[in-house]
């Protein structure tokens, strides 16, 4: 423990700054709004963050690799529509979920193929996928919500376990699994190497083709999880689900310390980044701040927190 604190002081914990900023904001909010630290609000907060939090984790893989994935929101929409249409058509819940996961993972892999084999910059490849996948969603759903989901499915998102919403536990599971993958496995090591220097990674015998497929596939898979959670939470398949999430997810990862030039980023950082943004929004709402001023503040705070982080990094 002492070791940890020392490490922290020496700035050796990558997420150190962010934790400090987060604590400062939490203290401020707790002082100004008595509602902020209530059990109920905390529950709301994690529920509000879980879905985008899962997307942001997939995004973190892509960003560590030096890429970007603009298609997450649309792929989330695909998951929502496919899973709900299948359920409504009578497929068992379990199967519907599996199919949605497979489809979304494949869409992610297609991103990877376009990027690796097509040599198209990730920004453009996933921008194309973003546009096309949303079009597909609209086409197959006729731009309509899908209602009439099985009760057991829609109930899932309402459950609380040990006082915490079920969504939170899914997020937690994702966090733990991806934390292990990024920090303990060969794939994690290769991911960082690839992001830091793709050519060196290739010349070191890393199979960067499959790695690229894997990275974008993971992002697609995370969108599937998020889309299914959202569908359960809203008891409907929503064709517009996830619109604009790409920017939120990227912001979470980058505020969490990931660099868009690749090679750095952590799962914990992204989790903190997502929380920071959500807390600012939640706090602003609790304080009854004018929504436009709140919007301005969110913009300013994202910039300022990254700026502080850069300063502190430079001074260590």
């Amino acid at each position, binding site marked *: 423990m002492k070791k940890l604190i020392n490490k922290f002081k020496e700035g050796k914990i990558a997420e150190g700054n962010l934790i400090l900023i987060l604590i400062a904001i939490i203290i401020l909010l707790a002082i100004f709004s008595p509602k902020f630290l209530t059990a109920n609000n905390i529950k709301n907060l994690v529920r509000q963050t879980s879905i985008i939090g899962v997307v942001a984790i997939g995004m973190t893989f892509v960003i560590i690799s030096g890429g970007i994935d603009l298609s997450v929101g649309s792929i989330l929409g695909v998951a929502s529509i496919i899973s709900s249409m299948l359920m409504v058509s009578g497929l068992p819940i379990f199967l519907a979920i599996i199919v949605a996961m497979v489809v979304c993972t494949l869409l992610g892999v297609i991103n990877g193929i376009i990027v690796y084999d097509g040599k198209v910059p990730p920004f453009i490849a996933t921008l194309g996928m973003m546009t096309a996948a949303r079009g597909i969603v609209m086409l197959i759903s006729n731009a309509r*919500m899908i209602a009439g989901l099985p009760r057991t499915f829609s109930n899932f998102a309402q459950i609380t376990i040990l006082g915490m919403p079920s969504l939170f536990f899914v997020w937690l599971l994702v966090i733990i699994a991806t934390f292990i993958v990024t920090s303990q496995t060969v794939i994690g090591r290769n991911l960082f190497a690839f992001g830091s220097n793709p050519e060196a990674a290739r010349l070191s015998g890393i199979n960067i083709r499959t790695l690229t497929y894997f990275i974008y596939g993971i992002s697609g898979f995370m969108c599937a999880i998020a889309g299914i959670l959202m569908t359960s939470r809203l008891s409907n398949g929503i064709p517009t689900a996830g619109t604009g999430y790409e920017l939120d997810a990227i912001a979470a990862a980058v505020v969490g310390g990931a660099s868009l030039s690749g090679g750095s980023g952590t799962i914990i950082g992204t989790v903190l980044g997502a929380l920071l943004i959500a807390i600012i929004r939640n706090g602003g709402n609790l304080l009854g701040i004018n929504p436009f001023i709140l919007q301005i503040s969110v913009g300013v705070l994202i910039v300022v927190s990254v700026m502080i982080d850069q300063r502190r990094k430079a001074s260590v």
Partner: protein
Amino acid sequence: AAGQQEAAGPAGEKPYEIAVIIKATDSDFWQYLLVGALNYEVENPDLVNVTTYGPPSEADIAQQVTILEDVISTNPDGIVIASTSSDATVPALEMAYDKGIAIITVDNKVNTDKVHSFLATDNLVGGAMAAEKMVEYMKAEGIALKGKVGIVSAMAGIQVLTDRDGGFTARLNELAPDVEVLEPRYIDNDIVKALSATEDLITTYGDELIGIFADNNHSADGAARAIGEQKLQNKIILTGYDSDPEEVAAIKAGVLRAIMVQDPYGMGYKGVDSAVKVIEGGSLPEFVNTGVVAVTKENVNDSDVQGVLDPYSMKKY
């Protein structure tokens, strides 16, 4: 289904080419309008050939103008348009009018005389109705008309929404002067954000919060879910706008008390019909009110509202 074939008959020969342009392709409401328009085509295959257009989002006004211009280039016999902006489409519409194309505007008034007919609901009136219903249910639940009422708005900067919110606020101020109407919370037409915004409203104002008005279907879906989850439907009276399956379910569950339902199906159907009448030389009233209906638990199962609640059930193609 919709007329994909490219060459229309020479002007004056049937079937007439009618272009239907909606505000955005991303919502049930506008899809309902298309159902009305396309049903008309199915019923009168020899009379009209309907093609549908729309930008992906209501925020993108310039894109709609672009589409309109492109459509005019194809020289249709008639255009039915729900124009997002009242001014932006004026020059193009005037040009089309002068070319002899039948122009029917729906939903939103366009600031020009060169329009053959206008079919719409008055959103100010719809907002006011939502306030009336809210007060009615507050009284029924024995809630004192004192405290705060929130507005969950789909998007900032969209005229029809501003009208609904304005109509609601004005009427509520009249009916319940002791109630404070809070600043709208905007949700980017995202149900999850509507849910979060409502949760935060509930957390912030607690018992003081006695009502919420949600100004479209997505905002009402999210608000209903938040209130339902916390079982506060007897303390917070929620009224909404538009109709989708989730709203109907919420009405039936008593979480959402009333929705103001317009008749997008009618706008589409009657819009095409009006265009045909213009082409064939008939005369039309300048304004046709397509009306707004308040749907509540009491009338939600009535057969005559089924059509407006879910026009998809009337889809004939």
